[in-house]
């Protein structure tokens, strides 16, 4: 097991390196120039050129890449070209909200989606099944920002249950945190619920057709036991997998919900950085999110053996 973890972690290195090369090239080949935004509207081309020089943007690409990689390996994410702030501190300031909301989203989604998927599979081709499926397809069909607006309209403006925007860290109390975080998490959940419910249903359907389910029924087990003790645990691995791969989806959604709900998270930071060509920030952010993705999926892979004893490393 330890050996396996080690090997998996080692395998992360080439993937991350590829991501790094990829991101670097992608950005440096992009038109757009951080010098221009720094210089502002009144700058002349000559001034621009001087700023580019000062920022090292005129050096050959491979030199820039090696320099950046070297810094990275020393744990230095660089300094924002635009605001001159260390990237690490920018991320540190803003990762909390994103993280908290992402976790809340996953918790809420799993809590809702798994029972839904189980129900749909159990009552295959029944009204409940169609209802769950329609809901989960709907979750995939409406843009996140529309869902967000609708929730704000209903829950904040009409009913006044939640503030329309903003973020309160969990350190100021769970209630305060939830009052801000609930709606964004709910918004993000819709697509995640759709994904997990669908996956749960598909796998439960499959598992429910297995011989050991027939065995469980032959033992006289009530349906609840059959579904949750016998079937769900067997269906867990692909469900976990989809939670892992859905993580990418979550990041995409976060970018949008952070805009709609004005949450000071890293999603918006990244989009802003891309639009401003703030290379160090973009590079760090994409590397970080990619690394998180890889890490989450690694953890999920490792958790498989908890659910399925056949999987040993």
């Amino acid at each position, binding site marked *: 097991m330890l050996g396996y973890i080690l090997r998996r972690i080692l395998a992360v290195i080439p993937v991350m390196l590829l991501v790094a090369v990829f*991101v670097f090239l992608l950005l440096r080949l992009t038109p757009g120039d951080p010098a221009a935004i720094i210089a502002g509207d009144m700058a002349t081309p000559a001034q621009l050129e001087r700023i580019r020089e000062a920022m090292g943007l005129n050096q050959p690409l491979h030199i820039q890449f090696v320099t950046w990689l070297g810094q990275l390996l020393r744990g230095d994410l660089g300094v924002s070209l635009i605001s001159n702030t260390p990237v690490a501190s920018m991320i540190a300031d803003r990762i909390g909200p994103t993280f908290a909301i992402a976790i809340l989203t996953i918790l809420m989604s799993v809590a809702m989606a798994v029972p839904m998927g189980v129900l749909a599979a159990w009552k295959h081709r029944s009204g409940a099944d169609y209802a769950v499926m*329609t809901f989960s397809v*709907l979750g*995939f069909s409406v*843009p996140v920002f529309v869902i967000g607006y609708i929730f704000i309209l209903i829950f904040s403006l009409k009913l006044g249950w939640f503030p329309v925007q903003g973020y309160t860290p969990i350190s100021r109390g769970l209630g305060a945190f939830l009052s801000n975080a609930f709606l964004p998490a709910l918004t993000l959940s819709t697509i995640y619920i759709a994904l997990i419910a669908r996956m749960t249903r598909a796998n439960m359907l499959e598992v429910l*057709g297995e011989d050991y389910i027939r065995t469980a029924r032959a033992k006289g087990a009530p349906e609840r036991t059959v579904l949750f003790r016998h079937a769900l645990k067997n269906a867990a691995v692909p469900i976990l997998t989809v939670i892992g791969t859905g993580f990418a989806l979550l990041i995409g959604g976060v970018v949008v919900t952070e805009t709609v709900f004005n949450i000071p998270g890293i999603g918006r930071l990244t989009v802003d950085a*891309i639009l401003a060509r703030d290379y160090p920030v973009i590079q760090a952010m*994409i590397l970080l999110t990619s*690394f998180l993705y890889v890490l989450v999926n690694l953890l999920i892979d490792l958790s498989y053996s908890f659910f399925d004893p056949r999987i040993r490393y």
Partner: protein
Amino acid sequence: MSPVPPPTSAMQPVLRALRLPQFGWGSKIAALVLAVIVVLTLLAQWIAPHDPLAMNPLARLKGPIEGHPLGTDNFGRDIFSRVLIGGQLSLIIGIATAVVSVLIGLVIGMVAGFFRTADAIIMRMMDALMAIPSILLAIALVALNGPSVGSVIAAITIPEIPRVVRLVRAVVLAAREEPYVEAAIALGTSMPKILVRHLVPNTLAPLIVQGTYILASAILTEAILSFLGAGVSTETPTWGNIMAEGRMFFRIKPELILYPGLALSLCILSINLLGDAARDMLDPRLKKRAG
């Protein structure tokens, strides 16, 4: 001799999957809705009462009035016409993304699945590509090429490719162990021929399902790109950029989001439902299963 068993195999799945009578009523409605949307958008040029670009900023954000059944947008353009025509580009983006990513993914996936040497390298690259959050990648790619239709399609396609590759590779890896493939090897069939004639058809069924999801999510992603300011120009309306542009007026003129949103959701809902139906259909285990 037992009676001829029901046709549970995945043979000719494509043709059979597309034969509607085998779908449930949900899928029939979905197919109908989709057909209506497609026909309407195809005929948009003739149905639309106005040029979708003809503007009159002095009569902007009007409710349903004479000649503008759904009212006008913030440039005073006819919302109805824009939604109709917007469907064209949305569908084109969806279809192009689905087709291109499936084709490219198919080729790469086949190579990865069949040639052990290439597999490791290709899959590491795919892993890397997958690890980059697709929406960020798409925004960056659009920023790279400017938000033309082509670059939006490319930006949505590239993150989808690794998913298709994984799928195809998995199917190929499974299928190449099938006895009929081994039989073909024994019959002296060459590798490329086995690939094309025995393995590719196996991937079709899952790819059709995957394709519908890509189609649907591409239309959505385009909308989100527009929302984040990296979409197609408002001069070429899409459901996505109509909504993105209208979002500022969500509370004073919700129609701007409502109608394109409705069209988009109905369309994606139908495509997804058809995709799910296809999945259920094409999965022999689900058909055999009972109880």
